[in-house]
Structure formats: C-alpha cells, structure tokens
C-alpha cells in the first residue's frame, strides 16, 4: 500500500495523556506570548522535560543558554532525521500532528529570540514535504508565522524545511548542522556546543520533533500537570515505536517508568525472548530482565522497541545491526570506522564457528575502547548491541550447552 499524506491534519484517532491530548493549533503560541520569555523558561525547568531523541539533555538548559547569548542571529532547528532502526514516532507526529511540532518551534523561537527556524527532514520522508509546506502556508495565513505574530510587536519568526539525503549520522546534532551548511555530515568536536557555536557559527538550539511537540502542552496545562505523569527523574510521557514480533505494532504514548513486561502486554506480544530498547544503538534485554523500567534512570531510550520471539536467531539480529553501523559510520574517527568493521567480522566468525574465547574477549575490549574513544554518539553507542547480545544470549550464540544436547550451531 502506498502511504498517502493528503491531508495531514485529518483523521485523528489517537488519544494519549500528553502529546495525543486535545490541542487547538496556535493556542500554545498565544499562551507563550501571555506567559513571557522568562516564565516559559521557568515553566520548562520545573517541568523537568528532557530531550526525547535519546540523549536526554534538559530542554530548559539548552534554551536558557541560547536565550542568554547576545548575538544578532540565533536559530532553532527541529531534528526530524529519525533514522534509528525501529523508530517511527516522528513520522506519526509530522504526518498527523504538524501543528504541535511547528507551534513548538515558534514558541522556541520566541523564547530564545530566534527569527529563523529550520526543520531538517530526513530524505526518506520527502513524501511528506509538500503537505508540511502547505501547513506552513496555513500558519502564515493565520499569522502564526511571519511578522508580528498574533499581533505581538517585534515577534517575527518563520520556518523553512530542508531535506537530508540518507545519512543516519546526521541525526547527531553537530553533523546535522554540518549538513545544513552544505557539507559532509561529519560530527564536530564538542565543545563548543551548538548553543554557543551552531548553524553558521551562531547560537543554535537543536530539538527533537517529539520534544518540540510536548512544549505547547506544557505551556497550556502547566508543569505541575506534566509532572503527574512519569517518575521523579523522568517526567511526562514518551512515544514508543513498537515493531517486531507482536500483534499490535505502532506508536504508543505511555508514561515513563513503565516496565518492559507491561509494555509487552499492551502490544500483545507472545513468547518474547528479547526486547531491543533504543534501536540498533540501544541494548538488548533478555526475558529475565523484563521487569526493568523505561526511563532516564534505567533504560533511557529514544523510543525504539523491537520485539523478538523465541524463533529469532539473535546472532542474525546482531549481524543486521553491525552491518547497519558499518554502512552508517561516517568514517571520520578511527574507533568507529575500523571498530564496527571488526565487530561485524567477529559476528561472521562466530557464525562460521571460527573463533576462540580469547578473541571474543579482545573484541569486548575493543567495544569498550569504541565507547570511550569515538567522537560522537554513533561510535560510542554502536557496541551496545554487540555487548548486550553477546552477554545475554551467550548460551544460544556459543551453544554452551552443545555438549549436553549435541546440537551444533
């Protein structure tokens, strides 16, 4: 079936506590003007909202640092480059709730004092471009973008959309900025952080689509209401993109702090052997740890949940992940460029039965080196799935009980 995005604001059926709750377009911007810049920052700080892309940096800190800097130009960038395997929440938000994302950007522009917002839309989502552009035109017609927004003197802001071209690493904020500047999407050294030296050298806030979508709700209903959901350290709700071996795959809005077991019941997953939390760069959780919770204090994630049932070969899963990283490593730093190739090689050797445990130990050490020595999040997190799958499924992978049941791999 071809997916059509004819009318992105029609056909709303989803319900949820925060993001999928009632919202009328533009209301968040109106409220932001009434609230004032300082109080918005205060409200965000007390809400405890953290970045929803995976890294979990406090939003209020990012915004405050940018708001405080005195320059002639500032930018707010929406990171719509979701490329993590198993993630598709941004697709749902952009197709069905563009008003939340764009209102969030306008509120951000108002708060930090930026006049220009840029959405970096991944190349794979080019089919949404037209309807998103149409939505921006509607916003301009309703004075939600442009000059003196909603009659507020001096509040000028507009948004443009730029496309990516199929590079996973561009989801990393400095790589994204490089890409916006027309360069190869290679991550920069940090510091300096984008809040000081971002797009074209100006202070820039880069926020995930989901993060921006939460903000209008927080402003309207208040930080106290937002904090009712979730846990003390992980406030609010999260969108989980659930795929793999379950009956009801899709996007779910659930409070932080939910256990994997509870989530599996909601999506009707049976005979589950393992759950990959956080996509290829996340960790693989075995059956015995399904009472662990999703949240910044335990399993922090951008929301990708991939479910594997008893019939799945975990080594094959790992091979798929490592092939992904070998292709998507930008090649700039050595630990990531060479390391991922070596880890894939290791998986292939295990497949053939051509390995020693001393060699596996060396590869685990290499993984640790990659985690500390890689330049950006890609190389720092790509060994996660290798380490967790090799450790949690060693019986299956190395056939340690082979002597007893005589099965060879």
């Amino acid at each position, binding site marked *: 079936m*071809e997916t059509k995005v004819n009318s992105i604001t029609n056909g709303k059926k989803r319900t949820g506590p925060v993001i999928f709750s009632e919202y009328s377009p533009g209301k968040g911007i109106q409220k932001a003007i009434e609230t004032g810049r300082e109080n918005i920052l205060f409200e965000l700080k007390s809400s405890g909202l953290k970045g929803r892309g995976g890294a979990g940096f406090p939003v209020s800190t990012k915004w405050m640092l940018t708001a405080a800097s005195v320059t002639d130009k500032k930018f707010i960038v929406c990171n719509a480059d979701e490329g993590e395997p198993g993630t598709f929440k*941004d*697709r749902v938000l952009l197709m069905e709730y563009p008003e939340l994302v764009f209102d969030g950007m306008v509120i951000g522009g108002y708060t930090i004092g930026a006049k220009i917002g840029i959405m970096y839309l991944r*190349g*794979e989502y080019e*089919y949404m471009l037209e309807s998103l552009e149409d939505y921006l035109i509607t916003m301009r017609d309703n004075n939600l973008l442009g000059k003196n927004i909603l009659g507020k003197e001096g509040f000028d802001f507009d948004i443009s959309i*730029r496309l990516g071209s*199929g590079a996973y690493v561009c989801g990393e904020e400095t790589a994204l900025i490089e890409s916006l500047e*027309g360069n*190869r999407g290679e991550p920069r050294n940090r510091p300096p952080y984008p809040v000081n030296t971002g797009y074209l050298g100006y202070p820039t806030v880069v926020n995930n689509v989901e993060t921006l979508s939460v903000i209008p709700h927080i402003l309207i209903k208040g930080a106290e209401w937002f904090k009712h959901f979730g846990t003390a350290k992980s406030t609010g709700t999260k969108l989980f993109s659930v795929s793999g071996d379950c009956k009801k795959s899709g996007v779910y809005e659930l409070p932080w702090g939910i256990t994997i077991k509870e989530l599996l019941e909601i999506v009707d997953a049976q005979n589950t052997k393992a759950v990959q939390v956080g996509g290829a760069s996340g960790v693989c959780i075995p059956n015995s740890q399904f009472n662990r919770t999703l949240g910044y204090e335990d399993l922090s994630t951008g929301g990708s949940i991939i479910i594997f049932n008893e019939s799945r070969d975990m080594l094959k899963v790992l091979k798929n992940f490592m092939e992904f990283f070998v292709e998507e490593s930008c090649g700039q730093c050595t630990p990531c460029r060479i390391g991922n190739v070596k880890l894939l090689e290791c998986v292939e050797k295990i497949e053939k039965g051509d390995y020693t445990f001393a060699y596996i130990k060396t590869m685990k050490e290499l993984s640790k080196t990659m985690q500390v020595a890689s330049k950006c999040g890609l190389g720092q997190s790509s060994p996660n799935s290798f380490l967790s799958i090799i450790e949690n499924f060693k019986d299956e992978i190395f056939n340690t009980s082979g002597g007893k049941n005589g099965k060879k791999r």
Partner: protein
Amino acid sequence: MLVSEKNALSEELENLVEKYGTERASLLQILQAVQRKYKYISDFAQQEIARLMNIHPVEVNSVISFYSFLDSKPKGRNIVKLCKTISCDMAGKESIEDAIQRELGIKFNETTRDNRITLEHTNCLGMCDQGPAMLVNDKVYTNLDIENVVNILNEIK
C-alpha cells in the same frame, strides 16, 4: 553529451544556483534538485555547480560521495530502495527480495536493461510497523508481499 545538452544543463544549473543562492549552505539543496531530476549528478554538472558557486569541484564531489541518496554514476529512470533493517527483515524482506530479483531479472545494485529501474537496498525507512517497506523514488510503499510488490514494479514507467 552533446554541446546543446551541455548548454541546456548549464542554464538549468544557473537557475538553480540563482534560486538557492551561492552560499555554501545551498550546495546540498542544489545537488538534491539535480539528483531528483536526473537520478545522478554527472561530472559535468558537478564542475558547473562548483564554478557557479566558486568552490573546488572536489568539494562538490566530496559532498555527493557522503550521502547515500546522491549518486555520481548514472542510474535507471526510477530507483527502487528496499529497506533491509531489522524490523523489515523480520517481516519477510528476503522473500520480497527474491520476488523482485526474479521479476526484474536483475540483482540488487543493478539496473534493468531498458534503464527503467535501479534496484538498491536502504536502511530504516521509519515504516517498521508496516514492513516490509520500500521507496520508489520518493514514494513509500508498505506492507509488501510477493504479489503486490510485483504489481507495484510493473506499474513503474
């Protein structure tokens, strides 16, 4: 390439550069526009863009070589990209792969002899809940099975 073709392309590129601007930040957008129309960015086009933007042609080439959706070699009129990431893989990507290769008579990373379709793999399309999925140019098709995928391919002009 005929001289008249070169002239036409040069003029088109001039218009593009005028539309997006000569700042470095416009480069990716210009390349994307050329890719969209011609399915690849020829050596000549790369040199022209470099000249118009006043940068070295190698700069243009280095950007093209970085992004998987930009090509410097000619491709078919349509590019089919099948997602090979884990969720689509588990949803039956391999049987779709076989069906496509059988129907088109080519392997992945090849182009049909009539230049109609180039077949490629791609990483996660964000359609994990509706896999297997593929892109045909910029359109996405989901819930593929060996029957509907063949119908989709046959409809491509």
